């Protein structure tokens, strides 16, 4: 799966989790850029991303992601 294809799916996940069809994310997007992305909603997002791509983030990855770019890097690594 290419990075662009991952972003296509990821945007849908973000729009669904945060209930906002206008959300588009990129490598530099951080929690502060998305309304409602707080420490509680973070896990809902992680679980939704895991389901969408059929992967499982480790707890280290779950708590250590700095931005969406890092999340995409981890997704690519898990997809092998």
């Amino acid at each position, binding site marked *: 799966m290419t990075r662009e294809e991952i972003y296509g799916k990821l945007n849908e996940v973000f729009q669904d989790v945060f209930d906002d069809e206008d959300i588009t994310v990129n490598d530099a997007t951080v929690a502060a850029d998305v309304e409602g992305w707080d420490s*509680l909603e973070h896990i809902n997002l992680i679980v939704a991303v895991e389901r969408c791509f059929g992967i499982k983030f480790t*707890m280290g990855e779950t708590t250590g992601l700095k931005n969406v770019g890092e999340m995409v890097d981890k997704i690519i690594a898990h997809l092998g």
Partner: protein
Amino acid sequence: MSLVSAAFLAFVAAALLLYYVLPKSIRLWVVLAASLAFAGFLGFYTLIFVLVSAVLCYVGGLLAGPSRKTAVRNVFTVITVVINLALLCAVKYYNVIGLASERLNLLFGATDKTNTFFLYAVPVGMSFYVLQTTGYILDCRWEKIAPEKNFFKVLLFSCYFPQLMSGPMNTYSALTEEFEKAKSVKFSLERISDGAVRVAWGFFKKLVIAERAAMPVNMIFADHATFTGWYVPLGVFFFAIQLYSDFSGCMDVVIGVSHMFGIELPENFNCPFFSKTVKEYWRRWHITLGAWLRDYLMYPILKSAPLIKLGDWSKAKLGKKRGKKVPTYVALLILWFAVGYWHGGLWNYVIGSGILHFIYIVLGMIFEPVSKKIRPKIKADKLYFRIFQSLRTFVLMLTGFVFFRSASIRDGVDMYAAIFRKGGAALNWANFTASGMNLANLIVLIVAVLVVLLVDAYKYRPSEDEPARSLIAALRSKGVVLLWAAFMLLLLATLIFGMYGLGYDSGSFIYARI
């Protein structure tokens, strides 16, 4: 040894001298020796427990590390984490264990319930370093870090002396990064000055404010059969001042001392009483405890299979929006129970520092959509509404402090009942000053609290994710003379108005007893 004592200052001065005079290659050995000596000064059992905890942490990390099969790693992680936490519960909260504890005490030869082995064996600060070492084992299991092979590095992480008694809690990766940086830190007067001002600020908050505010608090909470009606909210109000000055003052001393060694520790407070909501308050008060519980307790619970299944079920039954909140509420309930229990193991802590806040936060989440709709209509961006939000949050915190300061849950409920009880002492100056709080003391307290409020107002940033502004850095940028003037002023104010010496137990911080 107390953090606000001449002995501690002399200890720090001696450690600093050795740290900067001896070769850089043995610097961390100096810090380790100082840390073990400090643990020894705190008591024999504290030293023993620190060593046991470090060994457990070291072995647990190695066994939970990635070189074994997942099932084996899981078993060892569970065993070492459970032993670690069980030791905390068994030793620290022996009074909750009740009968079992009494029997244990009898086994150790105690003849009555008040003079017991476990009473004197409670190691200082263990609530902090046990969580920190537990975090290390879990980090190894989750492969956030590689298990450390050098035992002495783990030992230093477990017992680094400035944070040993009261935190702030740290992660292994963050603290060892600081230790590595410290190896090449050069002596600088600027660093020592910054640290000294921070330490003096902590002494000022503790000795001038906290000890003074404690006078009416002790009187009212000790005798709420007499001090009824308005005395109760007054007592709780003074307790909020006492607790904040005490704990944040303690953190100023800890962070200031560590800064002098070139080892930066995380901030634990970020102007909490300016918070708009209870949720925001807990991101500004005891920040490192909140971060620990979020990463090591709440996230694993929320990511567990049963909670994910519960989320699927609740979404199917209640709809997506409401349903996805259900597992969050369950995880929050467990989290806040843990917060309350950690504070003391008794029900007054579980309610006052835990469940009550869970209720406030969940209510805030439930009413968030309504609140969003109302805000534009009531011009919520105006200053008056902002002040109202902070005052509302402050009052909600006071409702929990009633239980936190009480001796038991029954005592806390009785404090509430005392508000409405008739026939107590009349609210007048003569009765109020029976606590020792005379006019001079009250004026000093008001002025000192205003100074703290002004400093917090300067440091405050609307987003809790942003670090607070540093007044020390601002003063230094205007010239080192201004910084030293601030230091001298704080020193003089503390020497003149501080409450210390005979008759005062200023040596003990509230959170060092947790």
